[in-house]
């Protein structure tokens, strides 16, 4: 089974979020970058588990500049076999999905996995667009994934429960919590990653369909009103009369 995992770079979750150039660009100064958690913990690890159990290969793909190479090396250290980096500064999900679709068609993959969403764009868009471009079934927010023969079996949470779905390969899946357990790369993996192929590919050159004009930070929250622990009735009163939420 040939598996493609879409990996993106995200600021570490504790990073201070600031903008530059008149609030049009994210200020990367002093920011530590990580593999987007959903891509790493769930999509990548489940792909590696499936390969370990059933054979095949795991390739990662990233659309972005050379500044992505450290996070790609980390994915290789965790256990991906090789990596593709499409050398392009993508500015929206349609560009990313189109570039990945072009490579996925060349590679002929059985399974394409991505994360539920990136923690910087919070789009949850790339996987669905990719599936449409590949004319493949798409199951977002999967919490379990198994493959037997040419059938994928996927569990996902729905309102008030969960559903189990099946679809014929090739399928595109976005991974949510539950699909796998995080793996920490070991020394051997880190050494091995150095000699694995990170193939830099030229972009097909898709145009973006949306554009971020500017960013802003939310207004600072007003001060907290403290209520005496002996008198929670005061809280109820305030929620009713002042905040008007109950």
């Amino acid at each position, binding site marked *: 089974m040939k598996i493609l995992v879409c990996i993106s770079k995200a600021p570490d*979750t*504790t990073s201070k*979020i600031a903008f530059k150039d008149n609030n049009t660009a994210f200020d990367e100064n002093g920011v530590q970058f990580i593999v987007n*958690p*959903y891509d790493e913990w769930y999509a990548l690890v489940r792909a590696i588990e499936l390969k370990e159990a059933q054979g095949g290969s795991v390739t990662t793909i990233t659309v972005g500049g050379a500044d992505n190479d450290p996070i790609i090396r980390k994915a290789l250290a965790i256990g991906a076999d090789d990596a593709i980096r499409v050398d392009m500064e993508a500015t929206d*999900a*349609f560009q990313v*999905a189109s570039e990945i679709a072009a490579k996925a068609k060349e590679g002929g993959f059985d399974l394409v996995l991505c994360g539920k969403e990136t923690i*910087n*764009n*919070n*789009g*949850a*868009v*790339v996987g*669905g*667009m990719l*599936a*449409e471009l590949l*004319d*493949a*079934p798409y199951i*977002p927010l999967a*919490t379990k994934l198994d493959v037997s023969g040419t059938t994928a079996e996927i569990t*996902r*949470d*729905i*309102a*008030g*429960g*969960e559903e189990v*779905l*099946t*679809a*014929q390969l090739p399928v595109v899946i976005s991974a949510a*919590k*539950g699909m796998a357990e995080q793996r920490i790369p070991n020394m051997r993996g880190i050494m091995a990653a150095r000699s694995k192929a990170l193939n830099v590919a030229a972009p097909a050159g898709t*145009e973006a*369909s*949306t*554009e*971020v004009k500017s*960013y802003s930070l*939310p207004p600072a*929250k007003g001060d*907290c*009103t*403290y*209520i*005496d*622990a002996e008198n*929670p*009735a005061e809280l*109820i009163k*305030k*929620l*009713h009369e002042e*905040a008007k*939420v*109950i």
Partner: protein
Amino acid sequence: MSVLVFVDHHNGKASKASLEAVGYAKKVADQLGTDVAAITYNGIEGDGGVAGFGASRLHVASNITLADSGQLAKAVQAAAEAEGADVVIFSHDDLGKAVAPRAAVRLQAGLVTGVTTMPNAELEVSKNVFSGKATAHVSFKTAKKVISILPNAFGMMPSEVSTAVSTFTPEVGAAQITVKEVKTTASDGEIPLPEADLVVSAGRGLKGPENWGMIEELAQELGAATACSRPVSDIGWRPHHEHVGQTGVAIRPTLYIAVGISGAIQHLAGVNGSKVIVVINKDPEAPFFKAADYGIVGDAFEVVPKLIHALKSFKASN
């Protein structure tokens, strides 16, 4: 040139998130001087409750029986073309996340998801990015536009428009997905977390799963859903679907009560869109107080029972 809106349904009724999207679509249509057409699939009963929210027409794709994103995207495209719609609205809920990206590709439209504002005159919209730590203001570069709105961000916007229901059978091919099994975990009457207006949430400060009785009682008295921090669902004290935060569910209730949760940045990322936040924590230095509107510094095991008691007397006298 109508505005098209996608409607999902459960047990024959349009979902709350969909009705929110219909109300939003109506406002966009008013802005553009046009009307709203809605599209849904087989299984809705009558208008499913869509009437009263602003859609003049509801098109039911009668040949789609399950929520297959590939088929639904084709149906949305067919309806958009029939209605001449350049703007299509979705809710950014589970099904919207599956269908909107596919529909946008088919329509050659730009897509912005998780939108929290009405479009401005240039049809630019805003959305949360960096897990709620910032807002991005986004413009479309395409003639057609797909906007997927954040659930609970707008609330219900009723509108006096009568809705004509009709069926159609778009070319959608065969379903690519088969439902093998549906497991219900929620007990009857339990409120699904992403749709809940009021949420009571608890963290590791509660010490063990046996102590959740008071949290459930408080939630029940309020008519709220329950949620938890990540470590709590990781250790298995509570089910995974209750985990809120960056890696769990992101919610935007009108009231979020956090009991024994420290307020780590990754937790806040999933709840900082709440209208009012109440924090109950025995540590006055807990970071959550910085994000709170109301705070009680105290031991949850003493404060929560008193709060339930106060709530009961409030309900009795109101």
